[in-house]
Structures are given as structure tokens and as C-alpha cells.
């Protein structure tokens, strides 16, 4: 009797991919109230025509389809087939690229981080049947490279006297009236005090981003222990919407962490086999 064809994908690889997809979708949809109104109402009622962009990248329909298409990735939570994981990853990556190049959503960091995490997921899902140490080392290293280039871009761009002095962040904090702790801080402290704080917050931000830009050269767990709280703390002095940019990166770090657990388990079993050869 022949059994149905089964794809053998290590459980932790499935879990890692699902976590990346889940947190990617959390980031993608975290601004859905804004994006749904923007893409489906504003772009239709008040279209912008910027001749810099080709007609395709000015179309509201392209933006709408690209924004909704990644919801197909939800299928990875009900299937274990590699083909579906690959398809989801490709759709996520292409949608991010389209919105990154679209007139009405270009330059939004959400789509830029989403693109790179999507690209990592395409590579990972393509090879996710592997469980050898090399593959897991590549997966963790490439994940850290994705995180590192994001923060490297932020780090070098902030190497200016205006950022180092805290002036830019303080101006945005005072003008935009955003940030989880913003209203409490403004109610209890005067502007001069807040600006002194931002001198140090801005320096910490630049140093933290610089450290994460070196992530591939640091032990993985150290990056997770410091990088994830660092990213979570962003919303204290910026808007919570920053999580639309960062949650996919957090997902990537967690996925790599899970893969370490898999590798440790594999190494343990390999050590046993070496000790008690067949």
C-alpha cells in the first residue's frame, strides 16, 4: 500500500517561517485603518499626479492590490507544504517592492523592511527542508545581515550634529505630539527639560543603531537580548506606528532564535550518535 506523498520539513523551520510571516503581517496591517482609507478612498477621491513616476506606479489599483495581496500568506498557518510557504514569501516580497516603488507609498520604511524580510523568507522557504548546521548558520547570519543593513542605513544618516544634539528628535516630539509616553511627559515636564532628555535619547538611539549595524559580528543571542528591547522601546518617544516598520525585524530575530534551538537539539543527537556509534 502506498502512502500519500509527505514533505519532510523540520518542525522548527515551519515554526520559524510562521513566526516571520505572523510578525510581518502584524507590521503590514498595524496601520491598516490608515492604509485602507488612504489606498481605497483618498487615492481615488484625490489622486496625485507626479510625472516622475511611470503610469503603472501612479495607479491606485496597483497600490490597493499590492496592499491586500499579502493576506494570501495566511495560508501558511493551515498548510505545511513548502510550495505554499514559498508562494507566500514571494507574494510578500513582490507586494513590498511594488509599494516601495509606488508614488503614493514610496519612501515608507514599512515597505522597505518588509521587502528585505520577505526576501530572506523567500530564500529560507526555498530551502526549508534542510536542517543541516550549514543551512541554519546561513539562516541566522542572513537574518542578522537584514537587520544590520536596516540599522546601518539609519545610523549613517543620523551622523549629523542636528541628530547628535537631539534637536531633530525633540522637534518632532514637540511638533507631532506622538509617542506612547508623550502626553505624560509633556504634562509633567517643561520643554527645556524635555530637550535636555532628548540630547541623551538621541545619542542612545544613534549608538544603539550603530551596534545593531554590527549585528552579524555579534553572538546571536546577545543581538536578540539587546536588539528586541531596543526596538520595542522606540515607540516610547516615537509613534507606536513605528512597529509597522520594526515588527518584521523582530520576527526575523525570533525566528533565528528558534533555529538555534533546533541546531542545539540536532547537535545533542549528533553527539549521542558519535558517542554510541551504530
Amino acid at each position, binding site marked *: 500500500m502506498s502512502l500519500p506523498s509527505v514533505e519532510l520539513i523540520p518542525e522548527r523551520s515551519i515554526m520559524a517561517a510562521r513566526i516571520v510571516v505572523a510578525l510581518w503581517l502584524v507590521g503590514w496591517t498595524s496601520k491598516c485603518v490608515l492604509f485602507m482609507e488612504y489606498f481605497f478612498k483618498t487615492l481615488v477621491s484625490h489622486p496625485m499626479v507626479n510625472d516622475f513616476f511611470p503610469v503603472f506606479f501612479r495607479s491606485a489599483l496597483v497600490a490597493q492590490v499590492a496592499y491586500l495581496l499579502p493576506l494570501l500568506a495566511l495560508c501558511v498557518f493551515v498548510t505545511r507544504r513548502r510550495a505554499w510557504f514559498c508562494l507566500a514569501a514571494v507574494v510578500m516580497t513582490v507586494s513590498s517592492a511594488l509599494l516601495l516603488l509606488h508614488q503614493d507609498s514610496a*519612501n*515608507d*520604511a514599512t515597505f522597505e523592511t518588509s521587502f528585505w524580510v520577505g526576501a530572506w523568507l523567500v530564500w529560507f522557504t526555498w530551502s526549508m527542508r534542510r536542517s543541516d548546521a550549514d543551512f541554519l548558520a546561513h539562516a541566522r547570519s542572513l537574518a542578522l545581515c537584514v537587520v544590520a*543593513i536596516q540599522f546601518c542605513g539609519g545610523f*549613517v544618516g*543620523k551622523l549629523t550634529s542636528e541628530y547628535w544634539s537631539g534637536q531633530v528628535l525633540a522637534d518632532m516630539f514637540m*511638533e*507631532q505630539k506622538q509617542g506612547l509616553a508623550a502626553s505624560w511627559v509633556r504634562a509633567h515636564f517643561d520643554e527645556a527639560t524635555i530637550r535636555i532628555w532628548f540630547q541623551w535619547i538621541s545619542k542612545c538611539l544613534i549608538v544603539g543603531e550603530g551596534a545593531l549595524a554590527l549585528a*552579524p559580528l555579534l553572538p546571536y543571542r546577545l543581538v536578540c537580548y539587546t536588539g528586541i528591547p531596543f526596538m520595542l522601546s522606540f515607540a516610547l518617544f516615537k509613534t507606536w506606528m513605528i512597529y509597522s516598520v520594526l515588527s518584521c525585524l523582530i520576527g526575523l530575530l525570533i525566528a533565528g532564535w528558534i533555529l538555534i534551538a533546533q541546531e542545539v537539539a540536532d547537535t545533542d543527537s*549528533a553527539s549521542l550518535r558519535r558517542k554510541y556509534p551504530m
Partner: protein
Amino acid sequence: MMRVNGNDTVFFNDQVGAACETKDTHDKEISSVDAGLACDMHHVGECGSLKAIMFLPPLIQSLRALRWSKDSAVCIAYAVFAAIFIFLACLPFSAAVQNMQVRKLHFALHPFAAWAADQFVPSMYNYPNRLVISYAPLHELDASQELAPVRTMTVNHYSFHPMYLDTDRQRLISDQPLHLYALTSYRGREWMTPCVLTSEGNVIHMQIGTTDEPAQR
């Protein structure tokens, strides 16, 4: 190892599987298990030890692994990352890279293909960006400051941000042209890109001019 469809033997490890895949005979299965273990031992010795997993930087582990098995996709990925790192590392020192990155954020990097390629280079919330909004061109305002009210704001991420990702575009519609100036400064240099917004009914036309040569402070 698992038996699938009666005959084929499939391994979790593609590399081991590729080296050792067999069909149905017991002897071959045993030999493939031996080969698989040999491969595993090689991996454990190279980069799979607990100490390495815990404390060795992943990049070092990965590059060591690449010595043994050339994975072309991984090599290409490292080449792309290295190119981006070098490009970004040049930003504080290279005027050409600075021009490119700022013009990208001002929608003024030509041709479009160059701008599109640069979009994938991360530039997360950097540079001090400002936007000046006026009902008259700035050079006219210099002569008579009372021509129109001017609003200047510090903007997060890129200067034209207030024009986009905002559901209130009605405020951009005006009987007369709206003059915008994107200002970005970086390490003593400042770029300004003019832009004119005009409206026809509910359609907003955005005409972006040429970025001014960076002025040395």
C-alpha cells in the same frame, strides 16, 4: 529518514540526501545512514558545536560553512549585503553618495530606474528634513515677506512626507499654486528641492524641480 510512497528514501538534510539518496534495498539504506552520519559529523565539527552555536558570531559560522559547500544563493546574498554596506559606509564621506541618497528622498534622482534601485537601500529615519510651504515662490518672498504666510516644519523620514500617507488631501487643493521646498541637511551640506502643487478639480499635480546644488555652510 522516512519511507515515502513505498520505495523512495527521503532525508531531512538535502545535502546528506543528495549524497546518499537510495532506492528500497536494505543494504543501500544502511550505507546511506552511514554516509549521512559522516556528513553530520563533518557539520558538527565545523560549525555545529554547542559552543560555536552559542558564542560564535553567525557571520563567521556561515562563512566557514561556505568554505565546504558553495551555496550560490547565499554567496549572492552576501555580495548584495556587502555592496549595500560599502555604499552606506561611504555616505558620511562621499558627496556623490550623499547627493544620491538625498535626491532619492526628494523624488529627484533621475532616471527613474536609478531611483527605483536606490529605494532598496535602507535609509530609515535619517537626515534632518524640513518642509517649507508657501503660496508664493521663496525668491519672491525674500523681496517682500508679506506676500504669503510661510510654514516650516521638521519632518520625520523625508521632506515630502506630509503630502503622502495622509488621508486629508483636501487641504492640498487650492485655487493658486502651492510652493513646497524640501530641505535636507547632512554634515554641513544642505539640499533644497522645489515643488509646485496645482489642482484641477480633485486631481493634484505635483511638479518637482531640480535639486539645488548643495550649499556649503
